[in-house]
């Protein structure tokens, strides 16, 4: 087999796709990555000229929901990302080889593409008891992650486990699970948050890297601004109900059946930065709030310890879409900051009645 690495365009043309199909793919990818139309030419250029970048995908303390979410990505050819867009040289979930053949594939890529491979990580790394809580091929996750990071081009941390430790790092964190940024330093790193992240957001992040050859702009928690600069609360289609003081008081009550705001049911939308309200899930079919459940805040560090989930936030910071994670910072996770009252006060002024429909006997 030749050493020439085919570009995405070469792949497509060899498969009988036309230039028009290629342009369409670029458009979809650009849309997925949130790239403006004017930058479309850059997308095309990058995909046309770059060979498939080698990617190694690690699994540590995780549940594989990130891998599953990734394969849910819905854009026409992004589902074929494995064959055409990147060269996924190591992934415990999908690779044909096992055992030492699998490990050999990993080491071949790390050697051949030293400094050029993209490292993606699913899962946290246990640091307790010398790392024995997660071993692969007899080696600790800690040793593996540090070795692989050394020569990686950049690191993409999938989901809450790799970004913030997720459920296994919830109190009392029995295995001393740590996110990747706590055990690796000196490498460009992106935290693609969520439990799991939205599939299209995962694909979009890869496309962004591939297209521009650089990291997307990140917020102070390392998340791409393209997908994590808006609170779920501010992009929620039920927001007008909040502003009007129309709340679900109990699951499946009359107000729930009308799709009122889930704030009183414990919704973490006001302190959660994610694309759920815009991109939605599984090709835009729905998102938790649309399907009647409050947001549990899965794209935020420490959300498991910010419960119980069905207790409404006593307060939350900020007002309006201008309030970004950068401005609010970690306060978002704590939910004890003043300023909330202001949000409510303004809301109440807009509509004095807490629930006009309920006041009317029998509704319509």
């Amino acid at each position, binding site marked *: *087999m*030749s*050493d*020439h690495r085919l570009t995405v365009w070469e792949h497509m043309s*060899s498969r*009988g796709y036309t230039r028009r199909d290629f342009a369409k793919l670029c458009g979809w990818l650009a849309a997925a990555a949130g790239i403006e139309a004017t930058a479309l030419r850059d997308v095309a250029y990058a995909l046309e000229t770059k*060979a*498939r970048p*080698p990617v190694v995908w690690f699994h540590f303390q995780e*549940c*594989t*929901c990130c*891998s*599953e*979410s990734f394969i849910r990505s819905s854009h026409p050819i992004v589902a074929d990302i*494995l064959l055409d867009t*990147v060269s996924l*040289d190591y*992934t*415990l*979930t999908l*690779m*044909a*080889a*096992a055992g030492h*053949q699998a490990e050999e*594939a990993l080491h071949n890529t790390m050697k051949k593409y030293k400094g050029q491979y993209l490292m993606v990580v699913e899962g946290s790394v246990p640091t307790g*008891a*010398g790392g024995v*809580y*997660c*071993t*692969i*091929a007899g080696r600790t996750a800690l*040793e593996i992650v540090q070795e692989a990071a050394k020569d990686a081009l950049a690191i993409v941390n999938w989901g809450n486990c790799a970004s913030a430790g997720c*459920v*296994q790092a919830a109190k*009392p964190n*029995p295995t001393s699970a740590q996110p990747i940024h706590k055990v690796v330093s000196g490498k460009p790193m992106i935290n693609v948050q969520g439990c799991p992240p*939205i599939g299209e957001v995962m694909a979009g992040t890869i496309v962004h890297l591939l297209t521009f050859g650089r990291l997307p702009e990140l917020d102070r928690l390392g998340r791409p601004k393209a997908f994590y600069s808006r609170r779920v609360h501010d992009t929620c289609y*039920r927001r007008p109900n909040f502003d009007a003081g129309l709340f679900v008081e*109990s*699951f*499946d009550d009359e107000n*729930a*059946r*009308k799709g009122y705001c889930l704030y009183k049911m414990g919704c973490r939308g006001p302190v959660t930065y994610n694309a759920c309200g815009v991109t939605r899930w*599984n*090709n835009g*079919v*729905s*998102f*938790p709030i*649309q*399907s*009647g*459940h409050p947001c549990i805040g*899965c794209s935020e560090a420490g959300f498991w310890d910010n419960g*119980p*989930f069905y207790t409404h936030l006593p307060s939350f910071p900020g007002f309006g879409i201008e309030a970004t994670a950068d401005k609010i910072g970690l306060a978002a996770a704590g939910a004890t900051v003043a300023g909330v009252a202001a949000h409510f006060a303004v809301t109440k002024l807009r509509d004095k009645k807490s629930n006009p429909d309920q006041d009317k006997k029998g509704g319509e």
Partner: protein
Amino acid sequence: MASRIVVDPITRIEGHLRIEAEVKDGRIVDAYSSGTMVRGLEIILQGRDPRDAWAFTERACGVCTTVHALASVRTVENALGITVPPNAELIRNLMFCTQYMQDHVVHFYHLHALDWVDVVSALKADPARTGDVARSISRWPKSSPAYFQDVQHRLKAFADSGQLGIFANGYWGHPAYKLPPEVNLLGVAHYLEALEWQKEIVKIHTIFGGKNPHPNYLVGGVPCSINPEEVNAINAERLGYVGKLLNDAQVFVEQVYIPDLLAVAGFYKDWAAIGGGLENYLAYGDLPTNGYGDVKGFKFPRGIVLGRNLKEVVPVDATKPDEIQEYIAHSWYDYSDGDQAGRHPWQGETKLNYTGPKPPYQHLNVDQKYSWLKTPRWKGQAMEVGPLARMLVAYASGNKDAQELVGAVLGKLKVPATALFSTLGRTAARGIETQLIAGWSKEFYGQLLANIKQGDLRTFTREKWEPSTWPAEAKGVGLSEAPRGALAHWIVIKDGKIANYQLVVPSTWNASPRDPKGQRSAYEAALIGTPVANPEQPLEILRTIHSFDPCIACAVHLYDEQGAWDYQVSVH
């Protein structure tokens, strides 16, 4: 003399699994299965709100997402005496069926197929003949020579690029691959089609649960509301979407998955005599048709088949202290009363104590402790759980749907009933139940529509939602069937908080190390006698292990730094 093969990591599974096997004269004579990752979900659950437990336990696994959430809400409902409205039961059933169809198809094509399908051989196929094969086994429309030629071109370009990605270092050309190039090409084409399709069927989770993976559940019902007159609820458009996805799923299962399964199986009948392993099969049953409380109404019946005796189904009671117990003789844990004891989950005790070799290591000390999985037993006996167990228990229970379909598959493959007790039988049982579920899901859908038409919109009961209505102490158990087998959660609630939470999951039954008597669990037993043509290439080991569809993150989650589960957790 026997030689030791180590396969670590076992790939195309969920989680971290290591197999060490002794091979003599080309066959496995002994095997050891080890889970090599632990997180500690149960200790994390202590002291939390029981209504939140579904979200924590759902994260036990993202491949069989939803199954732990379902077991968890049932556990809490069982403890508190909550009966959910019929619509909630039906929506849960639809989510259950959705999970099975997606999970089993993904298992067959993306986790298991590469054990049987030689991707490189597909390059040599005649696409016209692949089309002939495809049309001879199914009326699935994507079967033209041009279509298969396109797939082949794509595969060739991929191979020529020199970047083999997920196919790098595979066992291509291994003598155990038996399919002709044309069938291999069909397999590759459907690998790609299934990858496209699986993201569609899960949209049913998104509609009812807001997202997939990890859709939302709710103690007391389901979180979504039904309102035919409202855009912000489950209405005719949403239901129509679900109906379409179920139709498409049934077509895919019946026209792609099942024909492919039968076609591939026809070339590997020798695997109907390999990988049988244990002779006991356990299923808790699931898919209630008359409420979770009425076990007789379950589509998948509950019970145990002992010694492969299909004339009798033995009852199982998960609440009895002497039936289901967990052992740690070969697991990295301590019990207060010693390593030989077994404990029922309500009295479960988990104290982590790693005594394995210091990493990096070459071999585990298999004579001592060698896994993060505990070892569950039913009355001291090892059980296989999973699709084969479900089909055998259904068959032995006299379930007509199961009996007919099992008979039809055996007839098509021209193999005797004993062929079921094997690696191939396990893989076939998974397909058979998927076909059953595709049909059942439409019954549940029809019942949901009928209920709504009659004006029943309820999806949640508020009764017992508020902790103030709960007793000071309550115990519950929630049973389910995950795609990989019998799943149960046990809870003890004290003063409104979780005092104890235990999970005994399918892969713990199947993948666990030996018990104190030295009895092997299902993986270890099934590997005995498995041929190994080339010790450097563990293809045959993968076949048998993958036939169980391992899910190890589920299986290993037990860790209690404090020691005994003795309600010492203070109430906040």
